[in-house]
């Protein structure tokens, strides 16, 4: 089963607010779950810790994942998601600050679906988030659910 939820894994509260603002401005009304660090993200996806009660069969439509996260970094989260049959096809978009070549390579090598660098200019950021929402929530054909 797939909720039409977006999971935002981001530790910087300013970035969280600005991203939520950009979603609102882009008329993206999906429910957004905000997760603050890598360990919490893994708890969420695999129903452990604080999320023990969550039904892990319910997958979000889209994951926006920052790379520089407390506890477990984004790349590690991505690797863990890709290694598990339940989440290996989940659309994951890296949404981060750095555009260092090595980091981009590593993210793609570990199976991210897209890599987005947060622009400083808020207008650009808003455009990017809006396009991203349009594309991934409306146009993109998600992996078929294996019941």
């Amino acid at each position, binding site marked *: 089963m797939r909720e039409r939820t977006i999971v935002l894994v981001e530790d910087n509260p300013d970035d969280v607010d600005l991203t939520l603002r950009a979603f609102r401005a882009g008329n993206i009304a999906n429910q957004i779950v905000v997760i603050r660090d890598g360990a919490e993200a893994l708890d969420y996806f695999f129903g452990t810790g604080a999320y023990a009660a969550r039904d892990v069969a319910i997958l979000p439509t889209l994951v926006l994942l920052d790379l520089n996260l407390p506890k477990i970094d984004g790349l590690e989260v991505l690797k863990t998601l890709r290694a598990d049959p339940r989440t290996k096809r989940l659309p994951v978009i890296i949404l981060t600050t*750095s555009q260092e070549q090595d980091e981009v390579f590593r993210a793609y090598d570990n199976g991210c679906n897209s890599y987005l660098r947060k622009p*400083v200019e808020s207008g650009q950021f808003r455009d990017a988030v809006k396009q991203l929402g349009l594309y991934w929530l409306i146009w993109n054909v998600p992996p078929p659910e294996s019941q």
Partner: protein
Amino acid sequence: MDRSRGALVAGALFCTAASGYLVGVHQAGGGGGTPPRTYLLNLNLFGRSLHLTLTVGTMGVAVILMLTVLLAVAVILTMVASHRKRQAEAANRELETEIVERRRAQEAVSRLNAELERRVAERTLELQAANAELEAFCSSVAHDLRAPLRGIEGFSAALFEDCRGRLDQHGLDYLERIRKATARMGQLIDDLLALSRVSRGELRRQKVDLTALGWEVVADLRRADPERRAEVIIADGLSASGDLQLLHAALENLLGNAWKYSSKQPQARIEMGCRGEQHGQTVYFVKDNGAGFEMKYAGKLFKPFQRLHSVSEFPGAGVGLATVQRIVRRHGGDIWAESGAGQGATFYFTLGPAADPDRLSPAPEECSAGNSPAGG
């Protein structure tokens, strides 16, 4: 050595024979008044005595003569031999000291070499550590400086959108300035990162089609500024051996500058080509007919953050040419410029001795024929 010993033995033999002879003469003389016909030889050979009875007439004289000649020869041979020996010994000693000196020098050289190698290894390690630190620093600059900047920019935009009704003209103006300054700082951080990226990583040389690369950059410039009318000419067949990404960044800056600093010309004209060779290296150029600059400030061009135009005249951070200089120098080449205020500018650059190992670049005659900058 052997010869001189032989002569000595002969000498000793002669001496003992002579003494034996005299003894015999003496004994015989004591025995009777008549001259002796028979002599008793008492030879004393190396401590052993030998008794010989000889009948001497002419024979004794012959023996003595023979022995005398032998002695003379032996003495001469001994002298010659000892002279040779002294010479050989002197030569040997010289050779030995030379060998010792040489060995010492060799030891010193290998010691110095080992020391040098150790130092190089040490420095390399230090450099690697410094590089790693720099890299860590850079990505932290990228991440840590940009994040708060995004906050400032984003929330001043939010303030403008949500509360603009409650701000007067002054307030709105300040807000606008905050956002412009933030955008500038964002650009600055990006430029600095690009500058430091140039020095990192290895240089991957490959054959690069500079003509195609130039057109690619120009297409990007036109896309970013579709209203702009500018005539662009890029010579055909420009190629070099270099790092594709770095050369792309270099052309982006040079053509970007030509594009920017000729933007106030009603008929802007930008040209890229090559102009012969210098020290066996192809000289490429990017030329424009824009604002130019006074040559007396040319020394500042390639230093980071140094600008010859104010931000209100032409926007920019002043890092572009510093980046280009690092790129061409990493290739073993150089960059220089010719200009005058209001007279446009020409930037020349080379890409090092390895830039055209098997004549990747057009021959110099192709370069100078028709492709050279007017007046250059």
